């Protein structure tokens, strides 16, 4: 039955935005762990490990996120032998996907630290792990924050693709609302506005961080 688009629908869309944020948070957590591993592989002193990290990044970044979602949505039941909910499929796909981008961003930040820092810490007898932990990472984190916040915006927008495997977040809720009210223009403008309200502050924050961190260096 077709009913009017009203404030209640906007309220439901806002509620659905919570799932967008929840998925973004989990994807960032999973992607962060993968990304940390990949970034460390990329700067490791062992050449095959560096190649492994580079290979991971270029393969994952060369395949559309939509394809990752479908491969895991249909593939996990086959590979793991269990039926998976859209939650699990989306989590796995987003972790793998975000891991490649975060890994690439953080590699750049690790490499932005001057060579001499590595050499000086090596000459003090620190192991690779200790060099990273005590010398390189604490300095790289400052460089890493603005682009990481910028990527968070990408991630929020990309969670909209989880709608296509039936994950009910903001975009999917928009589709459902549209199918009962048949007000596509209004519904999707409201959906876009909610995304904008989540992303724009982050974009601005990333920019101001970039400015303040650059000045203080």
């Amino acid at each position, binding site marked *: 039955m077709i009913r009017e688009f009203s404030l209640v629908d906007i309220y439901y869309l806002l509620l659905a935005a919570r799932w967008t944020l929840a998925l973004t948070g989990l994807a960032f957590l999973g992607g962060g762990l993968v990304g940390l591993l990949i970034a460390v592989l990329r700067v490791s002193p062992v050449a095959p490990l560096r190649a492994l990290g580079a290979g991971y990044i270029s393969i994952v970044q060369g395949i*559309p996120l*939509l394809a990752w979602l479908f*491969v895991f949505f249909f593939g996990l039941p086959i590979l793991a032998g269990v039926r998976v909910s859209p939650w699990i499929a989306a989590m796995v796909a987003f972790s793998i996907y975000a891991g490649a981008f975060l890994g690439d961003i953080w590699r750049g930040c690790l490499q932005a630290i001057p060579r001499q820092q590595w050499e000086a810490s090596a000459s003090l007898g620190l192991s690779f792990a200790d060099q990273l932990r005590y010398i390189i990472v604490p300095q790289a984190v400052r460089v890493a924050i603005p682009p990481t916040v910028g990527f968070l915006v990408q991630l929020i927008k990309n969670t909209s693709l989880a709608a296509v495997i039936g994950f009910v977040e903001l975009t999917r809720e928009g589709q459902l609302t549209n199918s009962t009210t048949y007000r596509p223009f209004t519904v999707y403008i409201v959906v876009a506005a909610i995304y904008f309200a989540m992303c724009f502050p982050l974009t601005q924050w990333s920019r101001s961080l970039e400015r303040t961190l650059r000045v203080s260096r």
Partner: protein
Amino acid sequence: MRYAFNFRDIWAQWPAIAEGIGVTLMLTAVTMLAGLAIGALGAAGRVYGRSWLRTPLAAYVEVVRNTPLLVQLFIIFFGLPSLGVRLDAVTAALIALSVNLGAYTTEIIRAGLEAVPRSQIEAGYSLGLSGVQVFRHVVLSPAIRIVYPALTSQFVLMMLATSIVSQISAPDLFHIASIIQSRTFRDFEIYTVIAMVYLALALILKLLFAATAQIAFARR
């Protein structure tokens, strides 16, 4: 129960896959050209324009970059008809992709334009070049060279993002995958194959861009 993989049914569908690749490449090429044109004009407007031009351009960039492409596509394809603008799926896809890419290229090229020193522009004018000539030869081409890596990696991302237009049934590679899925019920196999095709396209595109850079920027 063991799952028996079956890729033979997928290979049998290669003509459809080839057609899908054709549509994806067409979408990518048109979007790249349109995105480049929007980006060059948008960046020029943002850097050299008056405030009545700069403000709406800044708004365009921010709105597009802070909302998902999928929702932009839905607004154009499902939303515009209720305002009396009816578009077929491919046209809607091309508009959405170009508008989206244009916002990113505007920002990227703007960074390049701002990197060109003011003194070079003045030198161009003092040699008697017109405003348009200065923009083309003194500003735009060095700027493009500076931002070439950022620009081309955005193009590769855009090629992959064209897969999203399958959601409004534009007959691109990804949409073909869903058609083959419904014909064969081999969902895992088809999406794995399609993922590999995208990966190959992305790597080829990267190689082409690297080769183009070698040729275009070599003698300088």
